[in-house]
Each structure stands twice: as C-alpha cells, then as structure tokens.
C-alpha cells in the first residue's frame, strides 16, 4: 500500500497551565511539588458555602496568548459549569467556558527550516480558560485498593487551545506543537513542562480515504497520555496505520461507531482502547451563577496587543532580513528563546557581522552552554566582550582556531579579547617574517614542493603544523597562499 493512499486528518487539544502565582479562583499558590493538600483553601477544595473569585492575572495571560494566536477576542464572556463526578473534582463540577469562550478563530503558522513541510497556517477554533482538577493517586503498593487525592493542583488556571483539524501528517502536528511551545515561552505565559503536566496534548485523528465511490472518513479517535512531542508524532503515525488496517478489515466509517478514546503506550509503542466511562457524557453545562460575566473592552485588547513584544515568526523574518541569515540559522537562534535572541542581537550588532555572529553563537556559545549545563543568562561571557574577539577575527588579526583558544579563556574570566591574546602571546605575524618562514619550510620539504608543482596544492597543508611549531601566531590561510605562490616559482 503506497503512502499516498489516504490523508491523515489531525486536530490537537492543548491544555496549558498558566504561570500565575495563585489559582484561577482563589489565592492559593500554584507551585508544583508541594506536599499533598498543602496548597488548598475552602474555595479550591469546594468547601460548602465557598465562592470563586476570578484571578485577573490569569485572564490577562489567556488574553495575551489568544492575541498571539491571532484569535478574535469576545467583548463579553462568561463562565460555565461542566458537571461530572470524579474524586479529583471536589465540587462535582469544573468551572470552564462553554458556548462563549473569551477567544476564537485564530491561527498559528508552521514552517520547517529544512523544507520538509510547506509553511502554512493551522487554524485555532478557540482558546478558553478553565480550572484544573486535582490528582488521584492509586495506592496499590500495600495491596490496598485505596485511592488518595491531592488537591494542590485543583483550581490551577488552564488555557485550553483547540486547533482545527488542519494538520495532515504527524510531522506537521509536531511542528505545530513546537511552534506553539516556543510562542508560549516567548509570551512567558507558561513554563510548558510536559513532565510536570503544565502542557498536555490530546490528539484527534482520522483518515480520509479516496475510494471509487468518493472519499470516505474513518471514525475519529482521540489519543491521550502522550508525554512528549516525539510521543505525539509516534502515536499519530501508529494510529494512522492502525486505522487504515481496521478500515480494510471492517470498512467502518465515521458515525458507524461512537468516538473512541485510546491511550498511547510509550513503551509498547501502540495505542490502546480505553474503557468507556459513559457511552456519551452529558456535562449539563450552564452558566456559573457564582461568577459575573467578564467584559473585555477594546482598550484592554489594544493594551494587551501592544505589550505582546516581538514574537518568533516576526523575529525570524527580522534576523533573515537584517543579517542575511538563512532560515535554518534564524530558526536555531529564535529557538533559543528571548534571552538567546537578545544575546545574538547584541553580538551581531557589536561585532558588525551577523553571519559571523551566527556561526559563533551556534557553534561556540551554544556548545559551551550545553557543556556547562547552564542557561544563556548564566553565561559569563557577555556579548559585548565576545564581540571584541569577533572583530579581531573579522580583521584577520587572529585565525579561527586560535580565536577558539581565546574564547575558552574569555569564557572562564572577565578578560577582554586583547588581554587574553596578549597573555597567550598572540600577535599578528609580519608579512616579511611569514615569507621568510615559508621559504625555510619549502626548502626543507622538496617532496611537497614537487607535489604542489604537479597540481596537488593540498600537499601544502602538511606545512601548517610545522609552521605553527616555529611560530604559533601564523595565520594558516595566508601561510598556504604564500607557500603555493613560492613553490610555483621554485
């Protein structure tokens, strides 16, 4: 069966924990990792008589994200109750937004610097706010069927982002998630930590299969339990193949069976059907009478829009236009986050050479960060100082390999490029000295001279090592040029 025999149709639902100090409807801390049930109060534990009060900050973060996703902002939005019973839901309902979400109809552009997927816009159906539930922990270690409930997470603000079913491959889904995560990081609205659950992804997927009777769609499956973007990609790949197989066996079309939920098993690399909790859930949504509707003025939207700052897509374009970087390079730099981009911009400006700055930033700075396991703002070699070194490289005062030595020394000290070079005795070698040195070397290596004369210019490379032994400051490029010229005349 060829790969093009069907289209994969993918929509994503992403839950993002917003970086507020306190919960969505009470003053409790949202910090991760505290001992169970220590970050609770009458409101988030659903104590009889308690009432929710909206956290303005959470709404602002939601608004900021929705604007960055090019969403329409509703001038009037309200809170609804989603009613269901579960032990981690102390009130017996979740406060969410049903028919009047605060934002809808947006898009996010995905692209691939390696050109594997076409750049295009993925539609956003809506983004709405809701409160998180708690965590159930099943304590079966002692052979007991006891469940324990931790309500620390209950009431943490979540932004639910629902995409349109616009993605056509697992790679596109991954690209969407990667771009979304980068955007959220730039907006500083979430730490996007999938391990701690601050970013959760569910995927809806089915196939459109062309048949002689027209295109048919397979039943939609929702996939849960994916703990990384890689897992999302693999789960979708697996699921598409599985659905095709099932379709070949059963011929089941969308609507023939109820929507299925399957969980991704990261070890076995398969999706498994999950037990249906109810045939079809009726959440009995209705407006929460404890909360007043929220009106969002145009001025509020304008202020939030103005405060967005430069976002990844715009930054990439700017880096490419200003410094002549390739899409690949601009992507690598923008992926480093706001601080990384700031570092690069200073380096490029002070050194006066964007491409050179891009190379040094990607190869040397990023490598050092990885080696030292630190973030860019912890890196002691600030861009202005590093730019001093890059200027010397540009001016051919130092060759790249010696410049790396200087970089290493600068990274562990507060010294300038000139200071380090002086310490290492790096001085520019005078041209006449260099010619003299070349003559000596060629005279001592007649075999190499012969090789050069026969057109094997590369042979001159062997002289670099010898030259460096005599004078470590020689510029290898210039040395080669002189040797080739002199050899031809011998």
């Amino acid at each position: 069966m060829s790969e093009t025999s069907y289209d994969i149709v993918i929509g994503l639902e992403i839950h993002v924990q917003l970086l507020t100090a306190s919960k969505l409807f009470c003053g409790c801390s949202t910090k991760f990792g505290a001992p169970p049930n220590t970050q609770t109060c009458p409101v988030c534990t659903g104590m009889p008589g308690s009432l929710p009060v909206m956290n303005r900050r959470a709404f602002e973060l939601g608004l900021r994200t929705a604007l960055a996703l090019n969403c329409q902002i509703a001038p009037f939005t309200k809170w609804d109750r989603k009613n269901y019973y579960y032990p981690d839901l102390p009130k017996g309902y979740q406060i969410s937004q049903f028919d009047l979400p605060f934002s809808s109809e947006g898009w996010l552009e995905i692209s691939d610097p390696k050109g594997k997927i076409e750049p295009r816009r993925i539609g956003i159906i809506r983004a709405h706010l809701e409160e998180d539930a708690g965590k159930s922990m099943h304590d079966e270690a002692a052979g007991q069927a006891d469940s324990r409930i931790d309500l620390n997470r209950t009431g943490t603000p979540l932004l639910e982002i629902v995409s349109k079913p616009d993605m056509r491959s697992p790679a596109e889904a991954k690209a969407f998630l990667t771009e979304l995560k980068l955007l959220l990081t730039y907006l500083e609205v979430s730490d996007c930590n999938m391990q701690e659950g601050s970013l959760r992804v569910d995927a809806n997927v089915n196939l459109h299969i062309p048949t002689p009777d027209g295109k048919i769609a397979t039943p939609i499956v929702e996939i849960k339990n994916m703990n990384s973007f890689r897992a999302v990609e693999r789960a979708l790949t697996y699921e598409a193949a599985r659905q095709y197989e099932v379709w070949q066996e059963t011929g089941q079309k969308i609507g023939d069976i109820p929507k299925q939920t399957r969980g991704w098993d990261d070890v076995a690399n398969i999706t498994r059907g999950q037990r249906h909790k109810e045939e079809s859930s009726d959440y009995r949504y209705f407006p929460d009478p404890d909360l007043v509707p929220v009106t969002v003025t145009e001025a509020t939207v304008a202020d939030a829009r103005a405060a967005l700052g430069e976002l990844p897509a715009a930054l990439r374009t700017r880096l490419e236009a200003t410094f002549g970087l390739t899409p690949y390079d601009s992507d690598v730099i923008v992926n480093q986050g706001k601080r990384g981009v700031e570092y690069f911009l200073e380096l490029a400006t002070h050194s006066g050479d964007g491409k050179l700055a891009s190379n040094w930033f990607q190869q040397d700075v990023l490598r050092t960060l990885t080696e030292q396991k630190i973030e860019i703002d912890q890196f002691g070699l600030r861009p202005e100082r590093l730019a001093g070194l890059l200027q010397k490289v540009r001016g051919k005062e130092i060759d790249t390999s010696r410049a790396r030595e200087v970089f290493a020394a600068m990274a562990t000290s507060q010294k300038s490029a000139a200071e380090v070079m002086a310490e290492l005795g790096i001085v520019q070698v005078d041209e006449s000295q260099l010619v003299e040195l070349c003559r000596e070397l060629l005279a001592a290596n007649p075999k190499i001279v012969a090789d050069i004369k026969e057109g094997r210019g590369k042979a001159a490379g062997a002289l670099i090592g010898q030259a460096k032994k005599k004078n470590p400051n020689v510029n290898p490029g210039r040395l080669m040029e002189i040797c080739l010229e002199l050899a031809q005349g011998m």
Partner: protein
Amino acid sequence: MSVHELSASELIAQLNAGEITSTELTRACLDRIERYDDRVQAFLQVGAESALEQAQAIDQKRKQKQPVGPLAGLPVGIKDLLCTQGVVTTCGSKMLEHFRPPYDATVIARLKQADAVLLGRLNLDEFAMGGSCENSAYFPTRNPWDLERIPGGSSGGSAAAVAAGMLPLTLGTDTGGSIRLPAGLCGVTGLKPSYGRVSRYGLVAFASSLDQIGPFGQTAEDCALALEVIAGHDPHDSTSVAQPVPAYRAALRQPLEGLRLGIVREHFGEGLDAEVEKAVREALRVYESLGAKLVDISLPHAKYGVAVYYLIAPCEASSNLARYDGAHYGHRTDEKAMHKQLAEERAVLQAAGNERGLGQLDSALVRMYRASRAEGFGAEVKRRIMLGTYALSAGYYDAYYLKALRVRRLIRQDFDEAFRQVDLIAGPVSAAPAFRIGEKADDPLSMYLVDLYTVSANLAGIAGISVPCGISQSGLPIGLQLQAPAFGEEKLLAGAHLYQQATDWHRRRPQLP
C-alpha cells in the same frame, strides 16, 4: 415589659445604657429556650457555654470602656446554613451531620466584629428546600402561635425563635421566600435584601442566583440595624455589589409623604384567603391614612414565577449539591458493606457465566456515590436534584432552563416597569395563614404554591420585607409584604417602619403554654 418582649433595638439601648448586661440577657434567652424550645423546636443546637463566654467578654470590654460594636452583646441566632468556624453546620441534612467548617461565612465574621453573641443554630428545611420547615432531617419546627402548625420555611427556626421571644434577632436565608414566608406566618418582621446586598460567602448554596441572607426581628428597625452590620461588598463574593451601605436606621425617619404604593392586581385573585385579604386591605387603608397613594399596577408575568423558580432553583441546586458525594463532603456509606455486596453480586454473575452482567456492574466508586447520596439526602432534596438534572440535560436545556431564564427576564422587566410608577409594592406574603403540620406532606405541588407571592422578588433580585398586619380568627398571624427596587432598602425599611409606628401588630406575642 420582660426582656423577651423587647425588640433588638430596645435591648441594645438598654445594653449600652448599662441597664442590663450581655451576660444577663444571654442567660435570659437561654432560660427561655430551656423552657419553651422542647415544644417549639426552633434550635438544632444551643451553644450555651460559648454564648456566655462571648457575652462575658463583651461585658468586660464595656466595663473597661473599650469601644463595643453596634450589636452591643445582643444574642443572635443563626440559620444552620451559614458556615461558622468550628461549629457543626448541618444545613438541616443528615448529609452534613458532622460538618464543621474551617471558616466563617462573611456575615458571621461581621456579626462577631459587631459584638453579637452567637447563641445557637436554627432549624430549617434541608438545604433550605421547603416552605414549612418539615423537611428538616432532624425534626419539624412548630409555630409558636399554634404548636400543631408549621412556622413556614425554610428559615422556620429563625422565625419561630424570634416569635417565641427566645432570641431578639436571627439570621435566615431567602431563596424563594424563605425569610418572608416564615416571618409572615410567625408574626415577626423579616427582610430579604436585594441580590448582591449581602455577601453569600459561607452561605451553603441552594440556588446561587437567588439565595440571599437577611435578618428576622420584631421590627423594621431591628432589620435595619442588622442590615447595617451584614451588608456590603465582599471581595470573596463577586456577586456582592460594591455599593456603599447607607445608614438604614437613620433612613427610617425619612418623610414618606406622597409615598406611592403599588397594589398588584394579580395578587388579589383566586386562592387568596378571605381573612388574609381583609387584613392586607386594612393595612393598605392605614397607609392611605398616613398619606400614601395607592396605585393599581400589574405584573403580568408574575403568574409564571413559581414555574420559573422551580426550574432555575433545582437546576442550580443539582450542581451545587453535587459536592456531597461521600468522597470529600458529606455522609459516606458503609464501604465495607458496599464492597461485600459488590463481591457477592460479582460472584453470582461469575458462577452463572454472565459476562454481560459482569460488564454492567457499577464500579465501587459509583456505588459509593450512589449509596452515600441515597442515604444522606431527604426526599425533597432528591426530588429537586432530579428535577434540575433533568432540566439541564442535553435535549431539555433549551426548553426548560433557557426558557426559564427568558421568562425570568420578563418578570424583572415587569418590576422595572412597575417601579417607574410606584415607590413600593404592597400585598400579601402568603395566600393563607400557617397550615397544619403534615397537611401538605403528600402534595409537593400545593406546597410549592406557598411561594406564590414571594418568588418573583428573588427572580428579579429586588428587596422585600414581611411585617405583621393582623391575626386570623383562629389566632394566627397574617403578614404584609412590601417590595422595593434593587438596593431600595432604605425606602423599604422606612415604609415598614412607618406602618409599625401606626400599628401594634408587630407587638403581639403568642401565648406559649
């Protein structure tokens, strides 16, 4: 006059004048409770020791010339629906028999701040669902005027305690008439403030968009005093309105010449008891003699009030009461027995090789939920949860809940229209005086109709007060209801005060055996 006949305002004057101490007054109330409450049964709990401690502390403050709050050491009773830190708050339900809130409702905190002595917890219909106080899971409260009759509900204990002279001031809640109705049937004064006037934080919700806390006292002046203490914006309740709290007592004496009193045509139709009509019409004549102008008005959608109320209130209740699932709050069924039964049922199905049956067995969790709620809730609460769950279900939502919301808007518009012509609306509180205990027990529909004249105020969010305006031939009190636009409590209380200055129905007390 004995202290039991004095109003809260009069007692506060005596306390502040040093004519009586808070401890003496608290003791007098405790004595009276001791003497009569085994028959009236207004209290679910009397905190004698704690009340005396609070009273002594306030007396001490006064002795040391420290400032004393506006309630001056007055004993106050609380409907057992308002959370009080460390004090069992049952809501009249078996479900919350052992529930001790770790926090104070905002009104409780304000009462404490005002130097009230919190003396006891008053009986109610379970979760405030009922109009007779017969739905309490513990016992029905009796009407002090006739112990065979209901005191009205749901704040029956709060009304009966004041009527029997056991307490000068109590708090209740009003969702569809639960303050005004028992006030009317017990011959005391009861105020339902406008929605948003008093914080609901700590009021165990029945129907959030309708619930409101209010006071019972002997007079409108008592209610004004209490409202000054409990009203005001609360950052913990986003539906509480940020409007300043006027000096309601000072406003009582505002001149009301030319007061326009709206008489609702629809209130005097079929079903209104002749004695009640006579008493209400007599009260209207009193107003006329005091210079008020009676204006004939119409509230055309008021007739849908009860129907709308019995959709909206149960819908909200079905969700508000979901938290009593045995997992976090409320009674939990005997889990051992539940697990045992589940194991037995499973064994039987397994022995029969009944795979289908096994697949359909509910999980232990679902069984726990079901049994806990079945055991913890009473019949009326279950009825309303079912009504609300049904009305909110997919396919019914538009026809019931949404339509009810639309009619609610029409009812509100009727009032807006009416209040363009009149200052206050006057009419009966209930169609008849108190009925006999058990009389309507098998007829929930006729029970629901006791709210006929009161529900629309809750649906519209306006203020209402019930003042005594007569005694029936069989010796039962009759109430007059006054209604004012939202946040029109000043005029409402002044209107009630005006009437009470000219009459003495509010001074009549039942002869307790």
